[in-house]
C-alpha cells in the first residue's frame, strides 16, 4: 500500500468511531468593543505594531510626499503594480531580481484589513520587492480596507495568486535574550501611504493595462 492509501485507510477506519461534528460556520469578530471605521481601525492596529501611516487626499499630495521621502535614497525597488507616474518620482529603479541592493522600495497593497492592521500583498506585485528592501513604502487605496480578515479573505478568494502576504508591521524578533529588535529579515520600517477614497489610483497590476515592464 502506498503511504497515501495507508494514511487514508487508517483515518477511514477510525473515523467510524467518531461522532461527526458540524462546521460552526463563519468566524465572527466577536469582541466587546464595537469595531471602529475600517480606515481608523487599520491605522490603530498597524501603528500599534510599529507601522507608519500617511494619508494623502490628492494625487498631488501623494506625489509631493513620495518625491520628498524618496529623495533620500540613491536606488529604489518597485512593485510591478506601482503606477508609472509614481515610479518616476524617486531615484532609478533597480531591475527585477536586484531588489536586495535597494535601500528602499515602493509596493502596492491589494487590500488592507482593519481587524488585524494588515496590508495584503499580492505575488503579482513582486515578492522580492515586498520583502528585500529594508524600508518599504506601500500604497493603499482607502476603498480597499476591509473591516475583518474574514471579509478580506472572502473578497480575494476567487482570484488568488501563487502567494499572498499579510504584512502587519515591520519585521521583529525577541529571540536574542527576549529583547525586541526590528528589521530582522523583512523590512524594518513600513509606511502605508493611504490614498483617500475617490483618488482610485491603485488598481491591482493584473487589472490594469500594462504601464511598465
Amino acid at each position, binding site marked *: 500500500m502506498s*503511504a497515501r492509501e495507508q494514511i487514508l485507510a487508517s*483515518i477511514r477506519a477510525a473515523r467510524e468511531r467518531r461522532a461527526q*461534528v458540524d462546521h460552526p460556520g463563519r468566524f465572527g469578530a466577536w469582541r466587546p468593543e464595537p469595531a471602529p471605521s475600517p480606515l481608523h481601525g487599520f491605522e490603530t492596529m498597524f501603528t500599534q505594531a510599529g507601522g507608519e501611516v500617511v494619508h494623502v487626499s490628492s494625487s498631488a499630495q501623494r506625489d509631493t510626499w513620495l518625491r520628498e521621502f524618496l529623495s533620500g535614497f540613491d536606488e529604489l525597488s518597485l512593485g510591478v503594480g506601482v503606477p508609472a507616474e509614481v515610479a518616476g518620482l524617486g531615484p532609478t529603479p533597480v531591475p527585477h531580481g536586484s531588489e536586495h541592493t535597494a535601500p528602499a522600495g515602493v509596493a502596492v497593497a491589494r487590500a488592507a484589513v482593519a481587524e488585524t492592521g494588515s496590508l495584503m500583498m499580492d505575488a503579482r506585485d513582486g*515578492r522580492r520587492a515586498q520583502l528585500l528592501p529594508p524600508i518599504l513604502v506601500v500604497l493603499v487605496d482607502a476603498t480597499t480596507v476591509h473591516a475583518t*480578515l474574514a471579509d478580506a479573505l472572502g473578497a480575494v478568494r476567487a482570484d488568488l495568486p501563487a502567494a499572498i502576504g499579510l504584512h502587519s508591521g515591520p519585521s521583529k524578533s525577541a529571540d536574542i535574550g527576549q529583547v525586541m529588535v526590528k*528589521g530582522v529579515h523583512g523590512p524594518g520600517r513600513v509606511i502605508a501611504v493611504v490614498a483617500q477614497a475617490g483618488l482610485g489610483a491603485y488598481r491591482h497590476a493584473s487589472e490594469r493595462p500594462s504601464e511598465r515592464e
Partner: protein
Amino acid sequence: MSGNSSTFRPASYREASARTLRDTPEVRDSVGSATRTFDALRTKAYAEVDSDRWRDWAQDVKAHALTHLDEYLEQAEQSLVANGAHVHWASSADDVHRLLEAIVVEHEVRTVVKAKSMLSEELEVNAHLDTLGVRSVETDLGEYIIQLLGEPPSHIVGPAIHRSLEDCRALFHEELGTPMDADPDELAAAARAALRGDFLAADLGISGGNFVAADTGTIALIENEGNIRLTTSVPRIHVALVGIEKIVPRFEDLAGFLQLTARAATGQPIGLFVSLIQGPRRADEVDGPEEVHVVFVDNGRTALYEDDTAWEALRCVRCGACLNICPVYRQTGGHAYGWTYSGPIGAIIAPGLLGLDRALPLPHASSLCGACVDVCPVRIPIPELLVHWRERTVEEGRNSVGERLAMRSYAELAERPSAFSTAGEALRWTPWRAVGKALPVLSGWMQEREAPTPSPKSFRDLWREGIE
C-alpha cells in the same frame, strides 16, 4: 512505524531535568521570565476579544475537520495539484528523507534555507541533509542561534528562550565577529547580513505549515521576522512539510485560526508576516519558486487518530500556551523532555508519535494542575489525556516493577480486614522523621517538610467509639 530516529530520549527525562536544575540554574531564570512574559501577553490578548467564543469556534472547526479528515486531505490534494503544486504523502521520517534526497539530487541542491518548522525537527531533516552533503541554514533568529550552538529547540514558539542575551553575545562574537558588548540590534543586523547571502544563494527553501485550507489548497504560515516569506519566495524550489492534522476546511477559516493562534502564542493580534501559499509562480508573476512540493506527513499521527481518547490532541495549533503556563515546564525548559515537543502538549502526543514505550515517563511529568486546559485555544483536555496515557501504561504493564509490587501488596492488604488493621497500626507507630530521612525520594521531600504526628487512635477505632 513512526519515530525511527535515534536521538530522541524522553526516557532520560528524570535525569535530564535534574541535570538542568543542578548544572545550569540560569536556564530556569531565562525560561521562567520568557514564559511568564508570553503568558501575560496571552492573558491580555484573550481579554480583548470574546476569547471563549473564539475558542469554541476553533475547537469545533478542528473537530469537524478531524472527523472528515480523509475527505479534506483529498480535497486539499486536488486543490494544490490544480494550483500547480506537487503533493506527496509520507508515512514516516524515512519517506520524507527519501523525497528530499530525490529533490536534492534532481536539482543539484547545495544550500537549503529553512523556516522554523517543528515538524522538520521531529523528522530530523537537517541531520539528513547533512548526510547528503547539503548545507542547511536555519533562518529564524532563534533557530539560527540554536543551530550555531548545536542544540535542539527548547520551546515550540521560542526555540532559544533558554539562552540569555549574554549567551548570544558570546556566540555571535565567536561566529560573526561582533563585539562582546554588542547590543541586540547589532547582533540581529549581523545575523541578517549573514543570512541574506544564504537566502539569495539557496536553491531550496523548506518550511512547515501552520494550516492548510482544503478548498483553495492554501498553505498558511505565521511568523514575525519575514524569514518564512523569504524562504518560500526567493529560492527556486519550496518544500512545505505539513502534518496531516493541519487541515482546515475553508480559506475563510484561516481568519479565525491566524488570529487566535497569534493571540495564544505571543499575545499579538496576528503574526507580523503571514504567507498564504497556493502553489508555484504563475505566468503573470515576476518571481516566486518554480516548483512547490507539499508533503502530507503522518509519522505517528494516524496512531494518535486511532486512539479514541488521544485523538483530541490532533486539534493542537502548536501555540505553546500550555508550555508557558506549565509549572513543570517552567522549571527546566524543553530540553529535559528529550524530543521536539516539550511541556504538556509534548507529553500527550509523544505516546502517539513515538510509541508509548519510548514516550515514558513524559505523561507523568505533570502535577495535573489543569492550568494548560484553561489557556488552550482549541480546548484540548490535556490533563485527561495525561491520565489516559498513565492508565494505558498500567494496563499494558509498562509501569515500573516497584510501582506494580506496591499496588499489588496494597490490594492484597485492602482485601483482608485484619491484616489492613495491623498494617495501619504499624504505620501509626513508625518513627516517620527518622525513617523518612533514611529513605530515598522521601528524604528529599522531608528536607522541606515535617511529617505530621499520627493520631493515637485509628480511624476505625474512632468510628467504632462513635464520632461526635
